[in-house]
């Protein structure tokens, strides 16, 4: 599929997805979009991810194929790089934490170097790390901030997040930094796919689709917060009714809310069937989550089977005379 089509098709798909709840709510299907779709999406998300993980877990890790990114453990006098080349499970845990929370492998792209005179410069690849980190962390914080709609009383950490996130106290309602950051990061992640020829070449429709979906989700959310207000008391009433499993749909929440909710549901439902499963997959990656101690501790391959080998007897049988000629000891004279 050409690059243009790879972008166009998902874009059209997302635009259609935006129209669906708008029309649906007009047709009086608000219960469907406010209750049925979210529950369904939630179930698909959980069920799907669970199936995916179980599916992965059903395949064993027959060999210990750690990628080592630093000095391994050998002698006491050789400095062991514990977190890039873990030897114990504890060290693996730290490596995974660094990987999952700080994107350490991507960070490796960051190389400070002296180039063309004394000016310190960084490799361009740091942007990918920064963009990815900014996007993922913003997304997480935004998700957690939304907990104010799902709990009563609102837990303290949400309050803390909100005050940190709204630190600059810009505008009313307060501008959340993550809102700005996530749009910037997402734009960057999108643009690099379009602008960098290598990336344009490798990008598939399934790379653009989640990007557009996220744009839809985030922009509708930002729109609701800052521009086209909806009645968030009612939003919370709906959210609370959903989480206590007694769904009621208050009248008169703006259509934009339904777009936002629908985007979220599509994203959740799409999750298990797409590359987005990297969220769960990263924890299972055998090159990262295994200790590099395979000479220290035997790793067992559960499907190991006997193979045909060329035994010494067969070998000696073939070469006995020649072996004797040069004085090599033989088993059978």
């Amino acid at each position, binding site marked *: 599929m050409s690059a243009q089509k790879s972008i166009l098709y998902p874009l059209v798909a997302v635009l259609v997805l935006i129209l669906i709840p708008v029309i649906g709510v007009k047709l009086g299907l608000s219960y469907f979009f406010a209750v049925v779709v979210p529950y369904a999406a939630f179930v698909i998300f959980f069920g799907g991810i669970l199936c995916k993980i179980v599916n992965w877990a059903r395949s064993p890790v027959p060999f210990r194929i750690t990628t080592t990114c630093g000095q391994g453990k050998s002698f006491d006098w050789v400095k062991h790089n514990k977190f890039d080349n873990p030897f114990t499970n504890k060290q693996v845990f730290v490596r995974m934490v660094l990987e999952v929370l700080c994107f350490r492998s991507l960070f490796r792209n960051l190389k400070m170097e002296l180039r063309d005179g004394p000016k310190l410069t960084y490799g361009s690849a740091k942007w990918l790390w920064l963009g990815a980190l900014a996007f993922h962390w913003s997304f997480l914080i935004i998700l957690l901030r939304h907990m104010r709609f799902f709990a*009563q*009383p609102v837990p303290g950490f949400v*309050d803390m997040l909100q005050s940190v996130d709204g630190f600059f106290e810009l505008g009313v309602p307060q501008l959340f930094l993550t809102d700005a950051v996530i749009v910037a990061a997402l734009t960057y992640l999108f643009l690099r796919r379009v602008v960098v020829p290598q990336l344009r070449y490798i990008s598939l429709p399934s790379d653009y689709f989640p990007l557009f979906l996220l744009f839809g989700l985030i922009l509708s959310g930002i729109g609701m917060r800052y521009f086209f207000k909806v009645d968030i008391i009612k939003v919370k009433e709906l959210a609370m009714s959903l989480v206590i499993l007694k769904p009621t749909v208050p009248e*008169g929440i703006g259509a934009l809310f339904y777009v936002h909710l629908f985007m979220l549901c599509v994203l959740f439902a799409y999750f298990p069937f797409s590359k987005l499963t990297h969220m769960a997959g990263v924890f299972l990656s055998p090159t990262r989550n295994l200790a590099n101690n395979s000479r220290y501790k035997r790793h067992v391959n559960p499907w190991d089977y006997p193979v045909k080998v060329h035994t010494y007897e067969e070998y000696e049988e073939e070469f006995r005379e020649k072996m004797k000629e040069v004085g090599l000891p033989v088993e059978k004279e």
Partner: protein
Amino acid sequence: MKIYDGRKIIPGILIAAVIFSFPFWLNFGKAAVPPKPKLPKEVKNCVEPTTFMRTSHMQLLNEWRDIVVRENFRLFAAPDGKEHLMSLQNGCLKCHESKADFCDQCHNYLDVKPYCWDCHLAPKENK
């Protein structure tokens, strides 16, 4: 069906499930109580229609403070012809007599912590 590394993966799944279903178990068995802001008894109409005030009062207030501070207009003639003093302390809170019974109701419900009250003085509640 054989699951490999189940001793690590299953607890992992459980932990993730607990985290992701947090809103469900946190509210389990509770009833959702929507906020009930106390409205003024005598006055029925606010400066703008209720629906607008519900969603956009913060922007209106923000708007007002710019107009008052920077342009020195202090009176707002509402569509119904009534004039209102554009002031939080000397306007709004004259009708909505209690911050706790009015503002805080929804703000607490939605965990909104406006910084109005850092400077503006809320009416002293009768204790």
